[in-house]
């Protein structure tokens, strides 16, 4: 797989996206744009407001997590990106092209070459073997098996399923089935990877396992990944950026740290209260500049490490304070155990900004 340069790549821009479910969405779109509430639309007109005014930039080569509870519209949103659901209003731009206005033929071509999708309930083809499932996207494109099979075998091996090529999905466990789902998506060699609650149906341990598989793969591949989840821990672990969706509207967009440290409103503050902050906040966030004439502590810790790891290193070294350095080893500042403790136990409050 060749690595594309980030400069030339386009992310996905979602602009003013609305989705109304019901028999006559076009009748109410203007009213909704002017501020009709979800409740009013539902009670008076029997239409459901799925998404309201979503504008979101999904960066190329990053994992963008869209998080929300069930019914928040996250699965609806991800299906707009590859046109499985058409919006009532708005546009979705990729490489300057609007997915919404594509013809059926263009849309098929877009799905075949630019996107691949992983599903919550795996959605494997039960009558095809693991190998044949992995070949599916390439089959659809008309790639001959002589070419697609080596590609499929490579990805089956990469997700750790070597030896299971000739098994049928029903013979595999849930975790293994989702590995097939991942291999099937990766074999397509598409820039955009859409993952709809891909790990939600898996047991916690297997889920952690799959998260690691995904992060390892992303280190190599730098795909534009859109990951849907209802699990905040998963969102914080995977997401380069996180968008929180509630009742079809965006509540906050930012990095995991931003959301935990500066929740935009009470809803999000409530949400992040139980988070293990030691695993989210990075040391460089807490580093205070060194005072004039202060001697730097002996111990050096990397600024991009999370507090939990830094605390572990400091405890092991028996140090009360440490010098925080960036990737290149340049000192940024000083961190001490009191600051770490305070950051880890203080619940977040709504930012005043």
């Amino acid at each position, binding site marked *: 797989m060749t690595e594309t340069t980030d400069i030339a790549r386009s992310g996905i821009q979602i602009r003013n996206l609305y989705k109304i479910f019901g028999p006559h969405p076009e009748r109410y779109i203007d009213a909704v744009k002017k501020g009709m509430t979800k409740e009013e639309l539902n009670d008076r007109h029997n239409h459901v407001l799925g998404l309201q005014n979503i504008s979101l930039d999904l960066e190329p080569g990053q994992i963008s997590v869209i998080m929300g509870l069930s019914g928040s519209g996250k699965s609806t949103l991800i299906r707009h990106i590859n046109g499985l659901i058409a919006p009532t209003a708005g546009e979705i731009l990729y490489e300057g092209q609007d997915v919404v206005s594509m013809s059926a033929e263009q849309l098929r071509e877009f799905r075949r070459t630019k996107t691949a999708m992983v599903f919550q309930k795996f959605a*494997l083809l039960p009558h*095809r073997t693991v190998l044949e499932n992995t070949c599916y*996207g390439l089959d659809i494109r008309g790639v001959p098996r002589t070419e697609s099979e080596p590609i499929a075998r490579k990805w089956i091996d990469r997700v750790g399923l070597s030896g299971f090529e000739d098994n*049928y999905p029903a013979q595999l466990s849930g975790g293994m089935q989702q590995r097939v789902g991942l291999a099937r998506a990766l074999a397509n060699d598409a820039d955009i990877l859409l993952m709809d609650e891909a790990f939600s149906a898996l047991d916690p341990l297997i889920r952690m396992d799959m998260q690691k598989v995904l992060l390892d793969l992303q280190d190599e591949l730098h795909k534009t990944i859109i990951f849907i989840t209802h699990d905040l821990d998963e969102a914080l672990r995977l997401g380069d950026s996180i968008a929180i969706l509630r009742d079809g509207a965006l509540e906050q967009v930012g990095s995991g740290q931003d959301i935990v440290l500066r929740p935009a409103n009470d809803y999000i503050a409530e949400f992040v209260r139980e988070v293990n902050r030691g695993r989210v906040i990075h040391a460089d966030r807490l580093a205070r500049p060194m005072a004039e004439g202060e001697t730097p502590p002996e111990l050096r810790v990397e600024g991009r490490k999370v507090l939990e790891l830094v605390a572990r290193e400091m405890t092991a070294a028996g140090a009360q304070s440490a010098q925080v350095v960036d990737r290149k080893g340049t000192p940024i500042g000083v961190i001490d155990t009191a600051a770490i403790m305070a950051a880890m136990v203080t619940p977040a409050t709504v930012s005043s900004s």
Partner: protein
Amino acid sequence: MASCWGLPELLCEFPSLSNGTLRGMRKSIDTGFRDLVRTYSDAIDAATAPLQIFLNTLEDIFTEAPWVVILLLLLAIVWAGSRKWQTMVGTTIAMGLIGVFGLWEDTMITLAMVTVATLVAILIGLPLGILMARSDRFQAFLTPVLDVMQTLPSFVYLIPVVVIFGIGKVPGLIAVVIYAVPPMIRLTNLGIRLVDREVIEAADAFGANPRQKLWGVQLPLSLPTIMTGVNQTIMMSLSMVVVASMVGVGGLGKNVLQAITNQYFTVGFLNGFALVAIAIIFDRTSQAFGKRLQKHQGVGHD
């Protein structure tokens, strides 16, 4: 005469059309229909000619080939479908008994009829079932038609069939197909509609076009249900050959019909059992085949 319980005449005796009107109506419809058929009789004959040729050829092959060849062919089909030695043994015994009781040739005629009827039913039923699965509107239109086809007493539609096509094998065949095709259509429709929505969505997400979805996902996944339809079609055509013998279809059905009219108890039962034997052979074979199609859903952990 109803006693009317003191009710006025109109609410007591159902106000039906007068006998004269009814007679006039019947006459004009019947003659009109007959004239119409007479006008197009050449076209109708031409349209049914291929069926006639196909049916005659198959019948000739079945009846003229040595019984050993036919038996081996049948056993080969049974093996290909069921892969069970029990079914093979059962088939051999059943066919042996049919031969011993002198019903071999009649059985072959019936077999040819059922084979052609099943093939025609699949040829008509499969595409209609697919269309029905794709369009809710077409389903809404076809469902009552199928209901009528399945509940209308088969003797009733034998009448127009005879008026249009006359007496003979082909009209019999058409009557059998009309009777046997609804389960094929219904179960094809059902099978396709029951395919997991998520799998269809996955096919969509990978950019499958409608043709790729149909042949690559919908048909393979609904094949077990479709095979049940084929099984039902075979069973129904076997039971219909007896009725169809009233319009000139030969074979076991004709013997049964004669046995009924002459009260030949033994002949009736022997021919009846021969039909049952064929029915069981085909049923077990096609069902086992349908089950084998689901091997991918076999045991595993979940």
